[in-house]
């Protein structure tokens, strides 16, 4: 799945989530929409539901099995949940890592 498709899919899901939360401007959802912090566009429960829905749609509609919530995700200096685009990057990173043969690192795979 291409990053652009992934971002578009999640922007659509974020738009729906904002509508579900009664937002007056759900159309403002975009790749840079903040998902965490004081400027977060969703409530904390809205974010929980969005992350769970993203996992579910990736598995059911795209056959991509990922666990978005992990120690790795929480321990990163820059949270992968900070924006839609950051989350898309994280999904691609962990799904590629899951498909990579054991012992091959991102660096060596790219060299």
């Amino acid at each position, binding site marked *: 799945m291409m990053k652009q498709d992934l971002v578009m899919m999640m922007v659509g899901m974020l738009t729906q989530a904002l509508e579900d939360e009664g937002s007056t401007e759900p159309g403002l959802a975009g790749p840079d929409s903040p998902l965490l912090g004081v400027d977060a566009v969703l409530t904390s*429960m809205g974010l929980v539901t969005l992350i*769970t829905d993203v*996992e*579910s749609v990736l*598995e059911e509609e795209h056959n991509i*099995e990922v*666990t978005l919530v992990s120690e790795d995700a929480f321990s990163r200096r820059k949270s992968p949940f900070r924006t839609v685009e950051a989350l898309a990057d994280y999904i691609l990173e962990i799904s590629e890592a899951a498909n990579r043969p054991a012992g091959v690192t991102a660096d060596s795979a790219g060299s």
Partner: protein
Amino acid sequence: MKPVPAGSTRVALVTGASRGIGRALAEHLLARGYEVVGCSRGDAGWTDDRFMHLRADVADESDVKSLCREIKRRHGRLDVVINSAAVASMNHLLLTPAASVETMLRVNVTGTFLVGRETAKLMRKHSYGRIVNISSVAVPMHLPGQAGYVASKSAVEGLSKVMARELAEYGITVNVIGPSPTDTDMIRGLPKEKVEELVGKMPVRRMGTHADIANVLDFFLRPESGAVTGQVVYLGGITPA
């Protein structure tokens, strides 16, 4: 909350379904018309037309995810979860190996957590679900010789209360049954005089039965019990500490 659509068969998952309380409750749900998925680390050792058994270690995240994936594939829905899989070990604190405590925490607590988390993802899609976790009267009775087991089941109760709050908005209830000593392999492994001494300390001075547990289970599973969540019901007349 949306109850099960008319004409649909309700689907239940029972962990630790190969024996003891898990098996008894799985058979009870079959008698109530459920399709039952059971899991345990080994073979079930019993069959039924509406019972499907899958091997899974409830404390293994990938096993639990695979289990839920299979339930979704075969049934498309899940209505009831009974977290019955557990291990117990009785020893004086001074003689209890750390590994024994770690195993109990892993299976009893992490297992309940993982199964609860993954099955809630399935159940929330229908805005309906019933999770029933199994504790023990050993918790409020602070039974000597069961430090690790009591610690693990206390954690199950705390976990259940938080789950109840967090999952309420998805129409999922989470409750706990604390059985009194019941005739299972787990209890048969204890010295007979210890069990008799324990039963003698209870207001209802008899061994618990699977029917006692099923009776409370039926109450928690009723569609009308949607407002009953985060509750712990002990059997045998024991009250919360």
